[in-house]
């Protein structure tokens, strides 16, 4: 990963600080759940010694909307919209993660084209997610331009996503054994047209922030966590790799067609806010590479398996034959009868390892389903990350771990 040339020194004692010990008492400040300086809906009870954070107690649950309980009331496919809204910045990745679990239970292998399409859309989503995170860091450190650039790049990709999946954000696009829709005509060219623009915008963000003195000072050596500690806290994804631990599910356990993709896993060294930021920029570029490779390798063929126990029959059969209407009817009203079993399936979400713990009792609805949102362990370490820093540093740290309420609070 690139190192900025202006290497800031480690924080040292200010020699001019003559009187560091002022008689003072600790102050407790309540940040959130709706606070001007916070995004998301976390409540932080911060104990301050002057400007320095002595202790912070996060309280979450302000976006808990019963993902597990609602999913248990829904058929296997009806769970998909709920997964969209876990990490709502990169819904396709959630869709893929969940549906892989169901396919694992049902021993179904999706078609090859569907696998490529999943990787393709998933990586686009990852780019969107990282762009949003980077934009938000910029925004909340005062760089509104960065935010506008990031959102513009995201808009370009969301246009492609909505052409492909039918929705900008909540796509519910995967299906058991495949995906819902194929590439629309001319989509590839459109994507090839807009990708350079996205990269260009990413480069501009890079140019605006990476060597920006203010930005570097605000992020370098802020919120440092060591590799061992990060693992202990359950970090995964960019936050873990920023500490130098090489764990990326796409490389460690290549699922889908990631084993055919040529990409690198960027690694940080310090585990601070700056590394987490720069790692995301790097990952945008790597994801861009994967997207291009997917486009090149995309094989022809069906986008969904032809097994009426799991995949909906074509509409023509539904309208004209009793077999089709029965299959359609049972799949919609009762759901796919997924064999009994219990799986933990894990994929690389945008913020880290996205896990689904799914239990099936052989019926049309999941018996139990719980999600490992990558953000939850990371957020639980927030007190550890911000301890000892100034309260103003809370914001970049909080942004850099990219807490997404949907996946953390389910």
């Amino acid at each position, binding site marked *: 990963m690139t190192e900025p040339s202006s290497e800031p020194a480690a924080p040292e004692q200010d020699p001019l600080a003559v009187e560091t010990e002022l008689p003072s008492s600790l102050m407790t400040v309540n940040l959130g759940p709706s606070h001007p300086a916070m995004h998301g809906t976390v409540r932080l009870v911060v104990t301050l010694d002057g400007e320095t954070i002595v202790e912070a107690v996060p309280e979450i649950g302000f976006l808990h909307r019963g993902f597990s309980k609602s999913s248990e009331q829904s058929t296997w496919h009806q769970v998909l919209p709920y997964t969209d809204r876990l990490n709502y910045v990169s819904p396709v990745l959630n869709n893929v993660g969940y549906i892989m679990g169901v396919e694992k239970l049902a021993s179904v292998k999706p078609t090859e084209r569907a696998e490529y399409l999943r990787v393709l859309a998933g990586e686009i989503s990852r780019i969107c997610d990282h762009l949003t995170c980077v934009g938000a860091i910029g925004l909340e450190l005062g760089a509104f331009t960065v935010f506008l650039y990031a959102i513009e790049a995201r808009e370009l990709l969301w246009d492609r996503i909505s052409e492909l999946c039918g929705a900008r954000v909540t796509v519910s696009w995967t299906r058991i054994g495949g995906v819902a829709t194929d590439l629309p005509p001319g989509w590839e060219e459109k994507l090839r047209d807009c990708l350079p623009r996205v990269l260009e915008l990413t480069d501009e963000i890079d140019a605006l922030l990476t060597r920006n003195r203010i930005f570097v000072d605000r992020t370098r050596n802020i919120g440092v966590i060591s590799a061992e500690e990060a693992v202990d806290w359950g970090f995964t994804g960019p936050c873990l790799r920023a500490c130098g631990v090489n764990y990326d599910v796409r490389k460690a356990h290549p699922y889908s067609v990631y084993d055919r993709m040529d990409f690198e896993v960027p690694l940080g060294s310090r585990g601070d806010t700056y590394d987490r930021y720069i790692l995301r920029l790097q990952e945008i570029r790597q994801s861009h590479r994967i997207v291009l490779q997917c486009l090149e390798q995309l094989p022809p063929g069906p986008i969904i398996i032809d097994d009426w*126990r799991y995949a909906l029959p074509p509409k023509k059969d539904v309208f004209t034959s009793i077999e089709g*209407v029965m299959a359609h009817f049972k799949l919609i009203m009762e759901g796919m*009868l997924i064999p009994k079993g219990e799986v933990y399936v894990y994929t690389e979400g945008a913020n880290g390892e996205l896990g689904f713990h799914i239990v099936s009792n052989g019926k049309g609805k999941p018996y139990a389903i719980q999600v490992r949102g990558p953000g939850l362990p990371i957020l639980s370490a927030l007190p550890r990350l911000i301890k000892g820093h100034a309260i103003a540093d809370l914001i970049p740290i909080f942004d850099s771990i990219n807490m997404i309420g949907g996946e953390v609070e389910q």
Partner: protein
Amino acid sequence: MSAPAKMVKVAIDGVEVEADARDNLIEAARRIGTAIPYFCYHPRLSIAGQCRMCLVETSDAPGRLVPGCQVRVKEGLKVVTNSPAVKENQRGCMEFHLINHPVDCAICDQSGECKLQDYYMEYDHQPTRIRTYKLLKPKREVFGPLVVYDAERCIMCTRCVRFMDEVAREPQLAVVERGSHSLIATFPGQPLASKYSGNTVDICPVGALLNRDFRFQSRVWFVDQGPSICTGCSNGCNVYAESRGDRIYRLLPRRNEEVNQVWMCDDGRLAYHASDEKRALWARIGKGEASQSVGPRIALERAVQLLKPLSGRGATGSLGVSISAQCTNEEAAAAFLLGGQLGVARYFLGGNPPGDQDDFLIRGDKNPNTRGVQLAAQAFGVKLEEAAGLDEVKALIGFRTEGLPVEKLQRLELFVALAQNEDAATAESEVTLPLQSVYEQECSLVNWYGRLQRTWQAVPAQRGDSAPGWKWAAGILEGLGAPSGLKSAGDAFDAFAQRSVHLAGLTFAEIPDDGYTLEGELPSEWPARAPRPQPGSPSIRSPRPDLRLEEETSGGAR
């Protein structure tokens, strides 16, 4: 059933099963949870072997498939239910069954509980290979008052024909025509008028026979099933009430070998209408034009205010309590408690007028709990009178208003009604407190031969101000300054059971799900075909078991 079962060992898919020698292969496989699919087989009907869906391989006939419904188990038999040949037969059977099946799922009431759908998904799940037109047959043939027939959907399993022959013993259905043109029909001029015709709809595995009462009312997956007891007559058939919101959509028989097996009568199927229509919904005071809904609290206060001055006068016979035989045990117990507090000396038994009776499930007494109310009266030591005695009282509390003579009510100075339905009697009441139906509350009932059965809250939704009768009575008692301590149906039942010799030592929670028969109540005469509790069965409970135990231990040698 009475003779001890002879057990044999068979191997089904390599798993050893100990099965009753009278079992066929389907039942033997069911013991270990292996499903052999079938359409035409029914455990309570004769074997037809029509559908060919249950063909399996056995060691007795290598290389051939034998029908699992027809072949009995025998010692050492090896059965294979998942070989390629069996699977291929099942797939082929499904394909044949679906050749002429119309594309009806979207408008068919059966869809959602249709065996064709279930089995298609499990055993076939292939596209159609038929490229020709489907055979057209009569649709919407009205067979009788409750049943409508669609010949296109029929797979000719003949369950309905066999049921009418063997169980209902009114052979009103037959198979006519041949081959793919065959269909079920009634005889000319003879509709399917049996009182048990609704059961053919239940046992029909597909959507060919449909209940006209339920037809197009609701999709089956939108209704919630709750266990309950039919209130149509004193037989107390076990039912499932299927409801959505506060409305019941249909009643279906629930299995109870000693009451109704798995059947019920058509009148019972329609019995829920009484709890759906013309309900007394809101607690109100005043009668006629002056009546107004005031909510439960004020209505209760009013009732207390009216009854308090009378509490001393009960003994003189001017205040009476009327208890309908539609009341649950708990309501009856609460009524007697209330009467006792008010010093009431005269109690009247009301209820629906008697009706038809047969030798199977239909009883002439059209009230679900006559025996229960009588037992409660016995327990509380009071005498129940006929409604004729109403002339002599000046004030009356009515626990359910069925069968109360209106002209006598009009004479009364005060009438307080606890009523489920609006009728002529509630029009005369000064205070009307709405009651929940049996389907909406936890309660217990005693049927005509003394079987104590409990219900659950099968329809959970709250309807108006309605509440169980014991709750209203407890409210009045509290207002009178004599708190009864009735907090739940269980409390009310216990108040009854403690006083009754038949129920002594029993609590509400201990009533088994399929009920007890109180032995002392068993009548000597019995209808010819009606299911009967087996002597010595654990579901028979004798009065005062502790006493009986003593007798047996001391005089066991005799």
